[in-house]
């Protein structure tokens, strides 16, 4: 059974003049016919189906359309064309460190975030001590959130998020946060969750992480789907070579060529 099915998903993204220009500028520009909204395809014709229990790594340079695609799968955005089908309860952990309220206390923020992630109050009551412990924030519970250091903030964010128990877990650059010891602790915790049979999608800039954890791989470039499949090693090699040569592969043969170049360069 498939956990996620995407069929010809295309997402048109808007950027341009409309942001922060105000009413007067809007009217003036409309009159002058100088009002520009740029629409571009953040994702174009993405099609894949992901089996239950699989672990998908999405790779691609900045602006490849990774985050937009995750938002479509999470239901935050709707695809302009195509369809997204998700079977099971989904939890998307996107840009975790932001979105807290500086004026509220650590405890209040923890509850609000827990509510956002779909936990119940009883669950939070049970787990709040554990969350604070894991984030190493004992004694800070009643402090205003804005008084925390950025490391503490991301530790709290991770600690709350790591209690999720969904069928499908989406991770956008949230593996291993913080510094030193906590980085290891959080990485271990995530691996523990991912190995529990959950279907996972992972966006990471660390290709090593993708190699280590994923059994399926999706390569996006400027919104186009370069590769989807289970040849993780091969594609990861090719991707690393691509990062140097910047030559976008046009087909599976190009990927093979890139892989060979990679292996040659690394003296294999």
């Amino acid at each position, binding site marked *: 059974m498939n956990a996620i099915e995407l069929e010809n998903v295309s997402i048109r993204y808007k950027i341009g003049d409309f942001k922060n220009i105000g009413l007067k500028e809007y009217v003036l520009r409309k009159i002058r016919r100088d009002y520009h909204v740029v629409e571009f395809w953040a994702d174009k014709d993405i099609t894949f189906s992901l089996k239950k229990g699989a672990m998908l790594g999405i790779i691609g340079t900045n602006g490849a359309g990774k985050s937009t695609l995750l938002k479509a799968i999470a239901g935050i955005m709707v695809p302009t064309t195509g369809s997204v089908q998700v079977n099971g309860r989904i939890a998307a952990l996107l840009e975790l460190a932001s979105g*807290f309220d500086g004026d509220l206390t650590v405890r209040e923020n923890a509850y609000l975030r827990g509510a956002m992630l779909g936990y119940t109050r009883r669950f939070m009551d049970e787990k709040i001590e554990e969350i604070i412990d894991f984030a190493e924030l004992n004694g800070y519970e009643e402090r205003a959130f804005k008084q925390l250091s950025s490391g503490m903030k991301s530790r709290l964010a991770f600690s709350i998020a790591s209690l999720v128990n969904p069928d499908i877990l989406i991770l956008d650059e949230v593996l291993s946060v913080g510094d030193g010891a906590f980085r290891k602790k959080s990485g271990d915790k995530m691996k523990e969750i991912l190995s529990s049979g959950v279907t996972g999608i992972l966006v990471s800039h660390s290709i090593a992480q993708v190699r280590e954890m994923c059994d399926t791989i999706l390569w996006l470039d400027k919104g186009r789907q370069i590769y989807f499949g289970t040849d993780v090693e091969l594609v990861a090699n090719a991707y690393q070579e691509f990062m140097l040569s910047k030559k976008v592969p046009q087909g599976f043969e190009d990927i093979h060529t890139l892989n060979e170049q990679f292996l040659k360069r690394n003296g294999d």
Partner: protein
Amino acid sequence: MREKIERYRFLFEELVKRDFQKKYKGTILGAAWSVLSPLLSLFVMRLVFGSLFGRNIDHFTTYLFCGNLVFAFFNESTSQGMYALVSNAAIFTKVNVPKYLFLLAKNVQTLINFGITLVVFFVFCLFDHIAFTPKFVFLLYPIVLLMLFNIGVGMILSAFYVFFRDVQYLWSVFVQLLTYLSAIFYSIDTFPLAARNAFLLNPVYLFIRYFRKIVIEGAIPSVGFHALMAVDTLLALGIGMYIYKKYNHEFLYYV
């Protein structure tokens, strides 16, 4: 629907709680301001307009309080509801939640505030020798409708505010204007008929009028009056819901 309510209940409660905590953060008197601030504005208005209009209006304090009570509820709900989407952008760009939750949470807070003021209002009615009659039950009608009306206007404003931040200034000017046009501190009884009818176009005036009719005059407004209020409310709510539905997935690009 039921399942949805269950699912988002915790988040909703937390949002309400957050709005309360933020509102009184840094104040010494805290929630006591909910009682004090309408009383103070009533006091100021009584002082300023008492000698001007007070002599010709029966139960002037109660008359004034009716206007203040309704208008403050409307003003607070809409002026603060306007920020419901923008100030929660960090939440709805990260998790998939119904976007009206934020506005509803805000409106719960203003409703509670209104409730507190209403109790104070009844206490004042006692002092002003107002006769409490069973007809007071009818006050539920304008209260429920005003609540829905506020939500509708709040939806429209909060959506517009996402696209144009000018809305906050325009709205504050408009509210100012509406204060003078809602017959809060004067009576329109001596106005020509055409002018009096024009006041019926102002939904906020209708709510105020309803309150006065029940409390001061001890009479129930006509069926047509009820219908007019219902139409205004449904219109605001309908437009608001339409905008929210239409732009549900557009807001994301603008915040």
